[in-house]
């Protein structure tokens, strides 16, 4: 079963995204910030990470930099989601997709499939 991890501090949105991905056959784990995401991923890297940009404790940007510095996590594909536009300084190789909120279910699933096919 494909495993997805969602890092998002807005609980209702986290729950909605979880429902969408579970409906697509993913086994989904969820967390509220980048620090938790690192802890959850290090033993068992997911097939895909969906992360918010602005989160407490460790932001999405910090999370991605941390992941790319770790051998076991640097290949995990990332879809970044954010209320703001793509931040300056984000390199193309850092994330595989960026979705500005609000995005539709169709758009999310299209990006999930594209990112996973591109692996």
């Amino acid at each position: 079963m494909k495993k997805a991890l969602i890092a998002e501090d807005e609980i209702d949105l986290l729950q909605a995204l979880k429902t969408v991905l579970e409906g697509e056959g993913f086994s989904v784990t969820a967390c509220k910030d980048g620090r938790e995401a690192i802890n959850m991923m290090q033993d068992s890297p997911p097939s895909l990470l969906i992360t918010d940009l602005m989160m407490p404790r460790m932001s999405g940007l910090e999370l991605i930099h941390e992941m790319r510095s770790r051998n076991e996590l640097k290949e995990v594909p990332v879809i970044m989601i954010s209320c703001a536009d793509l931040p300056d300084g984000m390199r193309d190789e850092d994330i595989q997709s960026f979705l500005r909120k609000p995005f539709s279910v169709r758009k999310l699933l299209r990006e999930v499939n594209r990112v996973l096919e591109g692996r």
Partner: protein
Amino acid sequence: MSESNTFSDLDLRHKAADCIDNNLEPILSAWESEVRRNIPAARYQEKILLRNHLLPYLTSLSERLRSASVKSARDRNAQDQDFDASANEIHGRLRATLPGYSIEEVIDEYITLRQIVTDFIEKQNLLSQQVLEVICAVNEKAIMHAATQFSSSLQVLRQRAVSMLMHDIRNPLNVVSITAELVKAKSESQAKNMDTVLANAAKIDKMVTELLDAVKLQAGEGLELRFDHCDLHQTIKVATEGASLAYPGRIEVHFPDEPADGQFDTSGLARAVENLISNAIKYGDSEEKVLVELKVSPDFVTISVHNWGHPIDEKDQATIFVTFARSQDQEKNFREQGWGLGLAYVKAVAEGHGGEVKVDSSEKKGTTFSMILPRGLDSSADEGKSGS
């Protein structure tokens, strides 16, 4: 006021300066009691926070009083007051971050300080006309610096607050739209209702994006434009689609036979054209068609949107592209006018492409907004910010 003393004017000014230097703490204490009594916002502030940057004000005043030339001592534009200026500017800026302060209260604090200083000097019988003039000149300049900074800082804080709030709204908005899609997928009977929810969520998102753009434009930050080589036929088709569906038969589009390619930000231009069409429908004659036209020349493309109906007053044509500007007619009917952001956005997008936007409006010819954009085919237009 001291007229009968035997000191020279310069002596008096020096002695007044001594009086200030020797009474810094009593002056500030008297001022503190007075503002705590009379200015509600000052009542519960900490002593340090309340007095910040007023000591440099007093020091600066005493230096001015000692100035050899009466003219430069009185001069409100003297160049030697940089420290005074920056201290007062910081004071104004910090007041903007304290709860409850209005611009009147910031000014009131300085006027109170002037009165207290004047009282101290008068009690020593040192208040000549010249001394009073210097006190007033320094006070007026301080007020000007502090009030200007207070006002611009408040504006920046408000813009930041609006910007943060608008960004944050996108989270619950996304919950609404995803949940509506999930319900729609599960329940056929609710599909129509959920489409209404989704359409309105999209409307809110559009308003949020427009407001965020307006805040950016007002702050002078310009728009982020991403340039690609593309043909505007497709961009115009996309931009007119929504309005053609909502107002069947009302939108007419004229395309040229040749390609209209160049270096453009298609999403910015599509939104600009949507704004122009939306205005043409809103303010134009509802019985007449709105004409969207794309024209090409070797170096430029022109996108124009024309409507018939009541023309835009000549005096309004000059200000119509300013953020939040509304014409006098529009002011009469708030509900019809929208945000007043659309045209400012159109102008920013046109200028971000190195082009311009023009309006031509009269009873005889109707109203035409034209965006004239360089195609940038031979130059290297790449990703950048608009210069607005």
